[in-house]
């Protein structure tokens, strides 16, 4: 029995009694995409928490100013996480060109594709409980694709507004001002940019709530792996095709 398990492809339970039917697995998310995803997730958590405390600082610390650097460390963490986010985003854009088809999905919407458009509305109906069966997609489903694309736009706004705000301290001659100073042509009073950057944080928090919920829900209801796919890169479809 033991040797049998060692030799045979396929899934058994631990006692070797029950055997799984064949499973469809497709490699979707390549390593750079997965790495980016988790670095991003971590950076966003750090950015949101530290960003919140920059807007509403913790209670004052006692002692001499020279002996404390609390706000300094919070801001440092925010800037470091922000710069990591930017660097990984640039690498991610590079990978959109180098990687497989699914590495490109985040960066454009195939609005000219009728099947895709149909899919957006189908998924919308699925989320409104209007259709019974979910569709399976190898990459993002069309509605998720729209959400991801919108999220990328938010992320781009957050990166540029963040760099612009960072340039306020770094100086008018800094690299950051050269890259993102144009934000101040749109928001001449940086107070407005601070407010929009802050609202952007809440937009991302909102996205995270929906993102995690949708991933868990799809993992269960659509009978395809979501969460583990972002770890292994492989998407597992749990049902065989009907003949």
């Amino acid at each position, binding site marked *: 029995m033991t040797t049998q398990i060692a030799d045979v492809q396929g899934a058994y339970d631990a006692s070797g009694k029950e055997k799984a039917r064949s499973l469809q697995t497709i490699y979707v998310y390549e390593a750079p995409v997965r790495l980016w995803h988790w670095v991003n997730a971590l950076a966003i958590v750090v950015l949101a928490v530290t960003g*919140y405390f920059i*807007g*509403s*600082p*913790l*209670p*004052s*610390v006692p002692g*001499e*100013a*020279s*002996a*404390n*650097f*609390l*706000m*300094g460390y*919070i*801001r440092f963490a925010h800037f470091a996480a922000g710069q990591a986010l930017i660097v990984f985003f640039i690498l991610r854009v590079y990978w959109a060109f180098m990687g497989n088809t699914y590495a490109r999905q985040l960066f454009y919407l195939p609005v000219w594709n009728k099947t895709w458009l149909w899919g957006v509305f189908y998924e919308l109906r699925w*989320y409104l*409980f209007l259709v019974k069966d979910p569709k399976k997609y190898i990459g993002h489903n069309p509605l998720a694709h729209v959400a991801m694309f919108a999220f990328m736009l938010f992320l781009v706004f957050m990166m540029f507004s963040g760099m612009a705000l960072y340039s*306020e*301290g770094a*100086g*008018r001659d800094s690299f950051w001002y050269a890259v993102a*100073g*144009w934000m*101040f*042509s749109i928001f*001449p*009073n*940086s*107070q*407005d940019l*601070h*407010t929009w950057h*802050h*609202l952007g*944080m*809440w*937009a991302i*928090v*909102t996205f995270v*709530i*929906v993102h995690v*919920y949708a991933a868990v*829900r799809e993992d269960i*209801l659509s009978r395809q792996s979501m969460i583990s796919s972002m770890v292994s890169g492989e998407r597992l479809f*749990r049902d065989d095709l009907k003949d």
Partner: protein
Amino acid sequence: MSAGMETFYEVIRRQGITRRSFTKFCSLTAASLGLGPTAATQMAEALETKPRIPVIWMHGLECTCCSESFIRSAHPLVKDVVLSMISLDYDDTIMAAAGHQAEAILEETRQKYKGQYILAVEGNPPLNEGGMFCIDGGRPFVEKLKEMAADAMAIIAWGACASWGCVQAAKPNPTRATPIDKVITDKPIIKVPGCPPIAEVMTGVVTFVTTFGRLPELDRQGRPKMFYSQRIHDKCYRRPHFDAGQFVEEWDDEGAKKGYCLYKMGCKGPTTYNACSTVRWNGGVSFPIQSGHGCIGCSEDNFWDKGSFYDRLTGINQFGIEANADKVGGAVAGVVAAGVAAHAAVTAVKRLASKKPEQVG
């Protein structure tokens, strides 16, 4: 007026100012502009040889706080010197001439110094009702402004009014008060915002223009970089308390007594570009933060409509309630989270209801 093309140096010597005082002024000004050691010599040379630039100083909708600030410029000589260095040919608030005589100077300057004079504007023109909300010399100020701007070399927009609009342009702006750069679009404009601008900043800008015969380098928003490229926050003497995380939490708390950072009290230093924390006011005596009150951001665009002076997070009142980014964003996130929870509940109920006895998986 008749001083014509007399040089600055001739004028001050005639007024009994010693050469020693003159060179002192040059080195002080060069230092305050952040220029190198040779600049003082260049400055002296320029003031000795170049003719004085005629300046027309006009007043639109404003409170004259810019003039009040300007005349208090504190370097020992600046008050006398600057008023002589430029040939201030017209300033309806402080000139001796009045009526038609005074107005005639405008026409004379336009013809005699076409393209050579500087138009300094304090305040702004209201455009509603054909500009009838500001009548100057019997006609709308906006007409006078456009006329004088047409032949000017450059325009200095003094203060928040001329630069951004200030209080008269705050919501709902009944007179449609409009900053200078939205009315005059074909001339170089130097914005010197502040309500009022710092006296030394004003005289510094004038000195730069007269010394070098060109405008100082301006930033994206049209402000001279030398005075407006850093925030109050960047050079604030309370900055170490900010970095340490030591804040005034209440106006009468221990932190307030110890001079902690006023960030939580709504200080606008982190978003305000001005020289207050370096040059300070009244001859370097103090500035708002030094006297225990946060910066209100008076040199920033539209600062009257950016919520309370005492809130850290800017008010967002489009929703008809007193909100800020945290309240609005938190509400959105909360509603979405509730929606997600409801969606999950419906999903679960539907799934249980439709579950068939057949095995799953």
